[in-house]
């Protein structure tokens, strides 16, 4: 007896565990793969959720961001004086002075880039604003420039060359690297010598100093620190400062819309991972009851049985967890890079504790999922365990077979349809997997449609084929130059430009625009205003409520404006342009997130002094915009104006990134759902291989066998689709407005109501597709299994 006991020590247990793992290779592989995908999803989802948690603060802390970025006049404050400011009371670190200037670069095609703040730094690193060089290298010699990664795109990457201005003899600058500054201290960097060389009358050199303070958490503390700096240098030497609080607010506002989206996918991924891991492992142990009975019959104690089966589940699951962590990290990298671009933040990496917590939780779930059926098996009487393992439990699902047998469908199909009712727990897990997959697919389809609708709704004025400017080109790529309050509009006579447009053959329609900063009663500071002349409907914004302007005295405003001023449609606001104050009635709430939602759009006739600066022109069908622009330019340029062709507007980087993330995350979740189904069907098929053998012996053809197995999941697919589509629909309906609110706007119907009935039907079919794809492999295996072998299987 003692020999027997010794024989059942760790060696015997180890052999049982190893043989159990090796014997059921398909199931072992499926467990490992399903757990791997679930853990990978959880790592990705967890990383994204961590990334959504104060991304600016993390990046700012990592880079030792500047609490105050100050510009000094080098003519009034010497380098030594500026360096001395770093010793001021409360300053914990400083960097600089760095020469700084503003350039107005142009691209290879002559297009204007936004004005860039160029700072001369010989090194990206330092005690303050330790830049994150995303790609390429640092500028080392004249003619080289490093630009902010926020400009990165298909064209702007290392190797791209731009001219420093639109002057014919302007020197070229080659982009050699892309960098991120959490503090947004500059748009581009070059060598200090290069910056000084590029300085001009329009963009003189200033000295940039970067400071960190021991107290800079509030606006008052920033103001106090700024006063200290001003007092430490000669009068009027401090030209301006920028607070990190303003940068943080802008960054947080930019990141805010993505947070509900990432959290939705994160929660979906984690919940689904737990369900899949739990069902996979508990199913695997639950189907081993007969073997457990045999082990008990030869003398294994219940505790040894439990240990053996928990270990047997932990081996493939452990491999899956390890691989899942690696895969999750690999998959998280591109997604976090996308998130970085959206947030404009520095290197986001998978948090170390995600890599620890996810495997730990996965192991716990695996352990519990294995322990419950193993304990049950351990408690079963030996005879019972063998009996349970050999014959299906009678009673379960027999009613379903009776009911399905009455359906006017082939017998193999009706037999399969009734099968899931024999294993309600396994079927529920499979149903949840399919439903979650369908939720993810439905949500992702709605989200991408909504994001595309947002993209289409943005910058409606860019829809025009040709833009004519009645004045010098603005500093924002040819767009209209904004007129400061009290400043005179351009000298070119807009009436002459308008006459030229009307006279130009090929003109289909046009409208004039005038942008200026105005003041609005109830809002401190200036508000961006756009005034329209003519039929501006082609350039109108999507309306959340109300209607677009139809005449003088009307104004259309975004949601944030209404919230800020406490007004609603039908109310009036007092708008002052220069010295002209008019009372305008709010007729519509526009979907317009520009300028932090503080903008007004009105008819140009509302203000007598307003004259159009820009004309947006539609050309007649068949007319080439380029040729039209060329001919119109021949008339307009001598007047002092300019004409340009509008390239088709591209979607915003953030929309493209969110779309890509949605697709990738959905594919992952759908894969996990499919693997969950695959595992359940593998278990089911193994368990029923003998019954399938009987059916085949009775003449069930391979095709009928496949249809039987597929039918066994089809009902689950249909039900998963029926549950998943409405939940995904509801999730979209909940998350989108939250995203909108985070961005400071309500959303128009075109963004919210994106689902069409046929699309929803197709998404419902996605549930069936997930289920059928997951079952295809075991169905083929069942069809190929030799009947004689299957009949011998117990």
């Amino acid at each position, binding site marked *: 007896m003692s020999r027997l006991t010794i024989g059942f020590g760790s060696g015997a247990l180890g052999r049982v565990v190893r043989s159990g793992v090796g014997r059921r290779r398909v199931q072992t592989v499926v467990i490992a793969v399903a757990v791997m995908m679930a853990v990978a999803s959880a790592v990705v989802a967890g990383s994204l959720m961590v990334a959504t948690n104060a991304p600016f603060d993390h990046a700012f802390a990592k880079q030792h961001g500047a609490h105050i970025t100050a510009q000094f006049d080098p003519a009034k404050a010497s380098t030594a004086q500026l360096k001395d400011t770093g010793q001021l009371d409360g300053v914990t670190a400083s960097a600089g002075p760095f020469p700084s200037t503003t350039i107005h670069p142009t691209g290879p095609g002559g297009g204007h880039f936004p004005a860039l703040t160029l700072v001369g730094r010989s090194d990206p690193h330092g005690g303050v604003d330790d830049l994150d060089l995303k790609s390429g290298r640092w500028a080392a010699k004249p003619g080289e420039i490093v630009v902010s990664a926020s400009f990165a795109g298909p064209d702007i990457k290392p190797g791209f060359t731009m001219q420093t201005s639109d002057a014919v003899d302007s020197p070229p600058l080659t982009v050699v690297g892309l960098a991120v500054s959490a503090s947004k201290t500059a748009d581009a960097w070059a060598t200090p010598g290069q910056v000084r060389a590029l300085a001009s009358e329009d963009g003189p050199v200033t000295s940039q100093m970067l400071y960190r303070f021991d107290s800079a958490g509030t606006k008052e503390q920033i103001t106090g620190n700024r006063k200290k700096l001003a007092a430490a240098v000669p009068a009027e030497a401090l030209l301006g400062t920028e607070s990190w609080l303003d940068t943080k607010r802008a960054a947080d506002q930019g990141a805010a819309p993505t947070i509900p989206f990432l959290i939705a996918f994160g929660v979906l991924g984690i919940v689904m991972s737990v369900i899949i891991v739990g069902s996979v492992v508990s199913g695997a142990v639950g189907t081993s009851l007969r073997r457990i009975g045999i082990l008990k019959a030869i003398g294994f104690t219940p505790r040894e049985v439990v240990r053996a089966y928990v270990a047997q589940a932990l081996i493939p699951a452990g491999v899956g967890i390890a691989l899942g962590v690696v895969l999750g990290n690999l998959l998280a990298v591109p997604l976090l890079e996308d998130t970085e671009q959206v947030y404009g933040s520095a290197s986001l990496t998978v948090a170390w504790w995600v890599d620890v917590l996810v495997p730990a939780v996965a192991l716990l779930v695996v352990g519990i999922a294995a322990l419950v059926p193993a304990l049950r098996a351990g408690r079963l009487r030996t005879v019972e365990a063998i009996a349970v393992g050999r*014959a299906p439990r009678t009673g379960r699902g*027999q009613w379903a077979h009776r009911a399905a047998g009455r359906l006017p469908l*082939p017998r193999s199909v009706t037999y399969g349809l009734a099968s899931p009712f024999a294993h309600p727990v396994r079927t529920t897990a499979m149903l949840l997997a399919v439903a979650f997959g369908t939720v993810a697919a439905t949500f992702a389809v709605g989200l991408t449609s909504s994001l595309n609708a947002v993209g289409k709704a943005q910058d409606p004025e860019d829809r025009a084929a040709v833009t004519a400017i009645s004045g010098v080109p603005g500093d924002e790529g040819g767009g209209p130059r904004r007129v400061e309050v009290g400043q005179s509009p351009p000298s070119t006579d807009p009436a002459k430009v308008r006459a030229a447009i009307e006279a130009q053959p090929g003109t289909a329609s046009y409208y004039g625009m005038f942008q200026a900063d105005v003041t609005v009663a109830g809002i401190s500071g200036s508000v961006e205003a756009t005034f329209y002349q003519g039929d501006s409907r082609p350039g109108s914004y999507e309306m959340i409520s109300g209607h677009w302007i139809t005449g003088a005295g009307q104004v259309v405003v975004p949601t944030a404006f209404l919230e800020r001023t406490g007004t609603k449609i039908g109310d009036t606001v007092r708008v002052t342009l220069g010295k002209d104050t008019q009372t305008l009635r709010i007729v519509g709430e526009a979907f317009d997130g520009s300028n932090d939602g503080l903008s007004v759009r009105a008819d140009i006739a509302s203000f007598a002094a307003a004259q159009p600066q820009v004309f947006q022109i539609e050309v007649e069908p068949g007319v080439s915009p380029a040729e039209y622009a060329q001919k119109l330019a021949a008339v307009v340029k001598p007047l002092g104006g300019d004409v340009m062709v509008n390239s088709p507007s591209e979607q915003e980087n953030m929309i493209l990134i969110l779309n890509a993330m949605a697709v990738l995350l959905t594919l992952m979740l759908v894969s996990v759902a499919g693997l969950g189904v695959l595992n359940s069907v593998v278990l089911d098929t193994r368990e029923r291989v*003998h019954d399938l053998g009987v059916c085949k012996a*009775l*003449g069930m053809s*391979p095709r009928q066998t496949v249809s039987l197995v597929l039918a066994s999941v089809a009902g689950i697919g249909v039900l998963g689709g029926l549950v998943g589509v409405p939940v995904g629909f509801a999730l979209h309906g909940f998350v989108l407005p939250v995203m909108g609110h985070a961005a400071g706007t309500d959303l128009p119907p075109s963004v919210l109501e994106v689902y069409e009935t046929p699309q929803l039907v197709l998404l419902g079919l996605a549930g069936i597709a997930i289920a059928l794809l997951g079952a295809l492999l075991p169905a083929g295996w069942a069809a190929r299994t030799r009947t004689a072998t299957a*009949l011998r299987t117990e």
Partner: protein
Amino acid sequence: MTQVIQLDGVAKRYDSADAPALGPLDLSVAQGEALAVTGPSGSGKSTLLNLVAGLDKPTEGAVTVAGRRIDQLSEHALARFRRERIGMVFQFFNLLDDLTVADNIQLPAQLTGTARRKAATRAGELMEVLGIQKHARAYPGRLSGGERQRVAVARALVNRPALLLADEPTGALDTASGQDVRELLVDLHRGGQTIVLVTHDLALAEACASRTIHLVDGHLALDAHAEAVR
């Protein structure tokens, strides 16, 4: 006389290095004949049955059943052939526990596409003949061994097969039930049903079969008609 089974030089090896599990073997079974296959464990009885049923393919030789060369058929064609031409009865019944007795019996008919009502009528006839009509709506788990084997026989006969294969049909039954099944097989043979019966039970072979072959190590050791066996 029409041959229902014709084996020509049939051999089956499970491992190319080993001696064949069966054959080479030449064998023919005429229509209406009841052939008992006997022999010790490992003699090749089940292998022979599997080859005739089209559940397995020979390594060598040709297997012709009901006029068709089945060793060359695809899996799909074999399945069709099996459900139309062959009925099988197993030692452990192999009934589907989640289907009622009636549903079990109807299953092969439904697999051939027979209309549900027609299949039900045929199953009803068989249940009446075999005395199990009162169990039509019961599940196999509630029946005795003998009753289950009757259900299995009914299922095997539902498509009026040219050939009934029975693999140790009384092997899992008590004496009374075994006797019951034995009488059933005798009746079937008297009715003209061609039967191949694999059994260890010489008494069963003697009672049911018009001819007995005895296999030893995969080879035919004895081929005798009933009179000779007696």
